[in-house]
């Protein structure tokens, strides 16, 4: 076992631990912080896979944006020090059953499926290459999604502002 | 720092002694190091109640400039400071507040009573129904600086006396200071 595998398993374990803490923690602010740590660990895994750009993306958007937004909304809607109410027993049953069954099934699939590597000349996932593909109109180009993203974001911005600023109704 | 400055008052407490019973300034180098750090980095709480606080501010200001000694890091939160300079009158209404502030400070902590009011109630000693007659009734005081108000040099002198006291005391003992009576 080399050092990088060790690091991978450590990171994986941390990711899962923090993920579990996120869903199990009864204090909502703590849950958000655990989510954050879990996301950071995932970014670490990306770095380990040499997907630096994705890792940076993960941190910039998830950690710097989404978690901050979630934390602010927690402040706005929650008595953040309070414990969350306990789960409903009926749903809890489903909530436990479904994941366990799913996990069993998917691990069966994973272990039984032969994953075959295709292709020969790997492309380094550098920002440069990503950029080139992003601005490309070829078959593998992503110029349309790129522009679509801007429209999507504009739409979501407008939408969320409209929704968030809707006046209170009597 | 040279602790043998002759214009500072004599340290009355027990300076620490080595086995031969001689007073020595350095018992252990750790003690000395800790004391050196503490005495040269006294961060005061920005606390002042009345007239003396203005002289305290003068001491901060450019002409007297106590930052030369490294005291200028005035912290507004008691959690981060080492020293309260009680500058001004303490009334019975203020006393619990002062006590609370003092209690919220982390160890080691020091107190300087600046001005007649803080020492004894000063001009308001007699006939006043609301003035605490000396802050040492509430919290233990390390150095007293008389004056009404003491001039900035006097405050610096008091601070240096405190430095001397720190240098000469044991680093790992919280000194039990006498507390004369409970406040109201």
């Amino acid at each position, binding site marked *: *076992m*080399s050092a*990088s*595998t060790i690091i*991978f*398993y450590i990171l*994986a374990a941390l990711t*899962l631990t923090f*993920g*579990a803490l*996120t*869903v199990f923690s009864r204090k*909502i602010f703590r849950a*958000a912080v655990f989510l954050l740590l*879990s996301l950071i660990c*995932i970014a670490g*895994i990306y770095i*380990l*896979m*040499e*997907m630096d750009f*994705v890792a940076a993306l993960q941190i910039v*958007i*998830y950690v710097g*944006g*989404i978690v901050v*937004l*979630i934390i602010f*909304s927690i402040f706005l*809607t*929650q008595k953040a020090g309070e414990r*969350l*109410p306990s*789960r409903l027993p009926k749903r809890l049953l*489903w*909530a*436990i059953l*479904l*994941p366990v069954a*799913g*996990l069993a099934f*998917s691990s069966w699939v*994973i*272990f039984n499926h032969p*994953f075959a590597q295709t*292709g020969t*000349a790997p*492309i380094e*996932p550098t920002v440069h290459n*990503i950029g080139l*593909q992003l601005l490309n109109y070829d078959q*593998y180009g*992503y110029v349309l999604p790129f522009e679509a993203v801007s429209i*999507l*974001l504009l739409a*979501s*911005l407008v*939408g969320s502002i409209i*929704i*968030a600023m809707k006046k209170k109704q009597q | 720092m040279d602790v043998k400055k002759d214009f500072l008052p004599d340290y009355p407490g027990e300076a620490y002694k080595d086995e031969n019973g001689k007073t020595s300034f350095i018992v252990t180098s750790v003690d000395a190091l800790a004391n050196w750090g503490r005495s040269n980095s006294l961060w005061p709480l920005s606390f002042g109640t009345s007239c003396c606080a203005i002289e305290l501010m003068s001491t901060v200001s450019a002409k007297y400039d106590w930052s030369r000694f490294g005291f200028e890091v005035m912290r507004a939160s008691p959690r981060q400071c080492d020293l309260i300079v009680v500058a001004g009158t303490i009334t019975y209404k203020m006393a619990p507040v002062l006590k609370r502030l003092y209690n919220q400070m982390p160890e080691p902590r020091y107190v300087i009573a600046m001005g007649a009011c803080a020492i004894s109630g000063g001009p308001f000693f007699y006939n006043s129904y609301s003035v605490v007659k000396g802050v040492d009734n509430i919290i233990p005081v390390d150095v007293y600086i008389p004056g009404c108000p003491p001039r900035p040099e006097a405050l610096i002198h008091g601070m240096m006396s405190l430095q001397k006291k720190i240098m000469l005391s044991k680093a790992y003992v919280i000194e039990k200071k006498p507390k004369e009576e409970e406040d109201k």
Partner: protein
Amino acid sequence: MEQVPLTHVLILSSTLFFLGIYGFFSRRNLITMLMSIELILNSININFVAFNKYLYPHQLEGVFFTLFIITVAAAEVSLSIAIIINLFRRFNTIDIEDTNTLKF
């Protein structure tokens, strides 16, 4: 990194996925549910990146999908938070049960 088998990465991602599922179903609080969704999306991202890395290294498809998923996640979060705030303002609670019982 090559020495980590792909299956392990996939196990990681699917465990994370089902953790998210669990959270999504067991929680009554909309914001915690949203956080669970984030976990689910992240597990999917891990999958994409891993597939790209292990199976299709000559392409960048997985990276791009991750990129767009993250983007969509951001859009989704901003919208859903807006909705949650709005709901909160209307019902003064963001508990899923309570909001259910109140008629829209």
